[in-house]
């Protein structure tokens, strides 16, 4: 005979799994530090490529505006330092932002999973109750 309470709980659990398979369940499968670190590395890599594109474009425009550019060693060092400082600022900005962003995403995913775990606990209790009744 079909246990309607059990079907209700299992349906809720299955609907949650379908909906959050690629969402909260995937996020929570990582430890919080691992999840943040993995995505932060991706973001910093993307930011580095974007920075290189922007700097390359600016250098290209400068070269086009001036037929030749003559720099001495000191000026080149200063120019390199300026680029390095801007790069550091970009990295710090994206590091801080991505840490906040992915950290809060992980927290929200864990809150959603808590609801799912409550359903699973209720199912376990139902199963134990059924077993106890069948043993009697």
């Amino acid at each position, binding site marked *: 005979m*079909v246990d309607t309470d059990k*079907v209700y709980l299992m349906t809720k659990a299955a609907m949650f799994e379908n*909906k959050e398979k690629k969402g909260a369940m995937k996020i929570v499968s990582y430890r919080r530090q691992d999840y943040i670190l993995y995505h932060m590395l991706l973001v910093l890599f*993307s*930011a580095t490529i*974007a920075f290189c*594109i922007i700097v390359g474009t600016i250098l290209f425009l400068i070269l*086009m505006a001036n037929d030749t550019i003559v720099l001495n060693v000191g000026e080149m060092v200063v120019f390199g330092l300026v680029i390095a400082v801007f790069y550091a600022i970009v990295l710090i900005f994206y590091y801080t932002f*991505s840490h906040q*962003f992915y950290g809060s995403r992980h927290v929200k995913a864990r809150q959603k999973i808590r609801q799912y775990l409550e359903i699973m606990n209720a199912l376990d209790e139902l199963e134990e109750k059924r077993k106890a009744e069948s043993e009697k």
Partner: protein
Amino acid sequence: MKWLLRTREVFRAFYAKYSTSVDRLARFALSLVAYLAVFYFAGYNATLSKPIFAVALALVSAFLPTSSTAVITALLLAIEFASVSIEIPVITLILFALILLLYFVFRAETAWLLVFTMVACLFGVSPAVLPMALLISPVDVIVLAFGVLIYGLVAAVRKDVSVFTSGSLTLGGRVNLLLTDILSDPRFLLILIGIVCASLLICIVRTSKRNYSGLIAIVLGDLLYTLLLVLGGFFLDVTISIPGLLIGLVLNAVFSFILLFVVRSLDYKRTEEVRFEDDDYFYFVKAVPKTVIRATERKESVITSSNPETINVDDLFHAHNDTREEKP
């Protein structure tokens, strides 16, 4: 107003039943309009710029994630611009790469906004972008700005395509001309400032905790946009078509109302089919969301000593629903 409530419930029931198809149809429609806009406004490659390709690509986009429309639009623009001059597709791909690397890495689901904004500006209905601010967060205004930037690029190429293809300028001269055209075009600057400022205002006011914040946001956003365009047109000597602007704003208001009332105010649940098993049975369950459509009107009478008053319960429901909708 009761017919609005019934209409909303009809939409809700329809979406609950056919959500996958509705989403695919919406993606197909947006992709088709975007690709046709690219072929119309930037159709420099005669072999590629055919409506049949737009339909075929839109059909493919309907089955891909929403962000694929932005990627395919970028590639189409690059291929079209390659027929004009080699550096223009490079600049186009650089712009798309920047927004991808700096923003879509966090929120790829907002990629459709970029395409929508570009298309709206190309067709001269830039106020149509403002209702989208009801659906996004303030940070997503960056995507709107990039959409306007892509429009500026397409408009600049269209303006000087004969100069680019004539071969009279060097590589540096063509890049310089393109950048000058984009950055010194007063119409582009007006639209960019108007959309960014109005969208930011709408996003911020919408999330406030007052009643009817959505409606107030749209009205204030429209007023700010109109003011910026009119004042900017006066000071930058740009001709703004006032009847066109007014028609655009009226349509904008209607579209915003529909968005607020039909899209944002409801939690759209979908019909779900799940399968699971236990030791005894296999279960195939179909969960269908409930809808509420009132068959009859309910009236209650409040009789005071002086004036008997009849209250329409549906109006009370509507008033309560409006209050509930405005909560963030």
